[in-house]
């Protein structure tokens, strides 16, 4: 056990992630200033996902329905108003109406800012209407995110906790049997490793590390973006509790241990029911750049330096795992950056603690030097190019072109 580190299974690839175009943001702001209000809104949609308005005649009034996670978003843009609405759930005789409606009123007041969930004709839905000349890009983006956050966080809570009735508006794409088996194996692997590590830490007087392994376990499961429903909301919630510095360490640990135990006891069917590929029109993760990541990772420098001076590879390797999982989990990083982190996380399971810590520090330093860019860049040294020329892989013309 001493020489082993937790495994990291690469999540399944999904083709449904939003295709972001960051350059559209500045365009949206400029268009709004120029009073091209409708075009500014269109640019905000393009910024978030080029596919959202693909094939739509933008010269006419726009009326589209797009799916995000578990909600279907009805969007209308004409020359006077932007209207966004999303039906969530209906109620029937089995629904615990009082508890559900109280929860909705609490969510509206405490958790939502500008959008609210309303109850009309036995239906809970979200609606937002704004005059087009008041649709600043920042506002449009915020409103869209609020719709989607509310959908992600609450729709399944309403169904699973209060027996509200799903409207089944979203077509779910199931995983293949092989994919399902792979995911189940990964989940069971994480949960069983969690047990082994908790036993190991507690038997060796390192019970404070239980927090790391609990957080790592929850991060890894929640990082599987094809695990949906109330499970997704619960995972997000428990992670935020573990990261909440205002809650006493021992209390959050008790909560996390209890929750992980409940996950271990869930049947395969429980996970399979909540396992499907989802479509996202917006990434709800934080915007990232090499500078943002450098700043974020730099915040952990002092703690890492402390572990380094104490030669505590054990602490270092766990701390770095948490840090990198947080990057994957919180930031909208490029596929290339994600691949580099996942590669390092997968590799440490094969290494001993010293080697594992060295490899993660190398990756950390690369991010700090801003070498892990958004895209893979071909950097050829003169010597490498000369070698490639000799063995005939590149021609003199290619080299000339590269240096143009």
């Amino acid at each position, binding site marked *: 056990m001493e020489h082993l580190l937790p495994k990291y299974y690469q999540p399944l690839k999904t083709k449904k992630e939003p295709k972001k175009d960051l350059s559209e943001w500045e365009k949206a702001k400029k268009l709004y200033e120029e009073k091209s209000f409708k075009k500014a809104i269109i640019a905000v949609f393009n910024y978030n996902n080029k596919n959202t308005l693909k094939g739509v005649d933008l010269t006419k009034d726009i009326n589209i329905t797009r799916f995000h996670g578990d909600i279907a978003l009805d969007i209308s843009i004409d020359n006077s108003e932007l209207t966004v609405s999303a039906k969530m759930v209906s109620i029937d005789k089995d629904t615990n*109406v*009082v508890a559900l*409606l*109280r929860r*909705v*009123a*609490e*969510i*509206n*007041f*405490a958790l939502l*800012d*500008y959008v*609210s*969930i*309303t*109850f*009309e004709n036995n239906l*809970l839905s979200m*609606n937002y209407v704004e*005059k087009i*000349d*008041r649709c*600043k890009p*920042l*506002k449009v983006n*915020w409103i869209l995110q609020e719709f989607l956050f509310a959908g992600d966080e609450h729709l399944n809570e309403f169904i699973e906790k209060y027996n509200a009735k799903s409207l089944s508006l979203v077509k779910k794409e199931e995983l293949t049997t092989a994919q399902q088996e792979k995911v189940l194996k990964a989940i069971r692997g994480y949960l069983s490793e969690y047990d082994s590590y908790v036993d190991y830490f507690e038997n060796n007087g390192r019970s404070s590390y239980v927090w790391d392994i609990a957080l790592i376990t929850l991060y890894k499961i929640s990082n599987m973006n094809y695990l949906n429903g109330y499970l997704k909301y619960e995972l997000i919630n428990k992670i935020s509790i573990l990261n909440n510095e205002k809650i006493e360490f021992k209390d959050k640990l008790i909560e996390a241990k209890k929750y992980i135990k409940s996950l271990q006891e869930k049947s395969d069917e429980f996970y399979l029911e909540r396992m499907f590929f989802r479509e996202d029109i917006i990434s709800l993760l934080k915007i990232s750049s090499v500078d943002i990541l450098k700043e974020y990772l730099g915040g952990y420098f002092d703690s890492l330096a402390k572990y380094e001076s104490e030669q505590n590879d054990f602490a270092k390797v766990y701390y770095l795992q948490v840090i990198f999982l947080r990057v994957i989990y919180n930031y909208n990083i490029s596929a290339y950056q994600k691949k580099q982190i996942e590669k390092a996380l997968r590799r440490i399971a094969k290494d001993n603690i010293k080697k594992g810590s060295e490899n993660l520090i190398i990756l950390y330093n690369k991010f700090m030097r801003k070498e892990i860019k958004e895209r893979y860049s071909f950097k050829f040294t003169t010597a490498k190019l000369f070698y490639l020329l000799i063995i005939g892989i590149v021609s003199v013309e290619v080299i000339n072109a590269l240096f143009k």
Partner: protein
Amino acid sequence: MKLENSIFKIITDSGSGTGFFLKGYDYIITNYHVVAGFREVIIEDNQKNRYLSKVVMVNSLVDIAFLVVKDMPIVEKIIELNPNLHIETTQEVNIAGYPFGMPFVITNGIISSTKQIMDNRYYIQTDAAINSGNSGGPMIDEDNNLVAVVNSKFTEADNVGFGIPFSDIQSELDNFTFKDEVYRVKCISCNNYLEKRVKFCDKCGKDINEKLFNTVEKEEDSQLTKVVEKAIANYGLNPKLCRVGKEFWEFYPKSNVIRFFTTNGEDSFYANSPICSVPKENIEEALKIINGNKVKPFNLGIYAKNNTICLYYRIFQFDVTNDVSRDEVMHNLELFISKSIKLSEYFIQKFNADVAIESK
């Protein structure tokens, strides 16, 4: 007769303190440091009614200030100033005031020292709990005789608080005979009162700290402040009495509290008003109304922490100041105040709900 009726919260842009009336005198007494830099402050009584008051005398050496307040209904003054009062150590005393800006509180302790010397002045030391916000409040004995005016505590020690002795207050009151509302600074050497900014006392020549004549430099009101205060004024209230901080207003047009505020670091402007507690009966119907989207452009929600139904209105800050939406927002804010009162009455009558805990 209630002690709290003659003890007030003093609110400035810099924070809050306590002040009180003495039997036979027309001034509210507080600490100089509570009102330093202000000529006008807000006085809030125990029923959360607010009044504007003027600072008429400051003595920075003793840390005492006198305020006059007009338009306040007659108050029964309970605390007495007894020049022959005898005090001794271990004698019980009460500290009355508004610590941390909270509602009226009395704490109890003993006199630990009747003559504690600090910075060449004598103070009365107590072990009663004194906190930020108690400054300027009275320390009294069991017969409501003034023992001292609370003015400091050691921040890193427990149960160590100090007060300006009643005899010092007696001297200040005896010396000050003006009946107008002019701001005066007392010379710390000769008891002369100075009305205009001077470098030294024209009577005794003692240097006068010019800072005593300074007023807190107020930032120019933001565009948002102007819009919000115009809405409050349009409703018929004095915005000055409603402002409790930078871009933060809190007031009671009737029994329920209204709050308008922005949040640092966010782009939002909020209007909130707890209208009543969640009803105990017929709750399903009440919840259907709350979530029924019937109070546009406002919303109703439940604040789970204190089980209260709240009316709220949240918008982007730029919509408050934007040319295209400013007038509409101003109108909505005015409407928000009356809507809050009507909804409060509606829920209390229809659902037999209790008044909100924060109501006055």
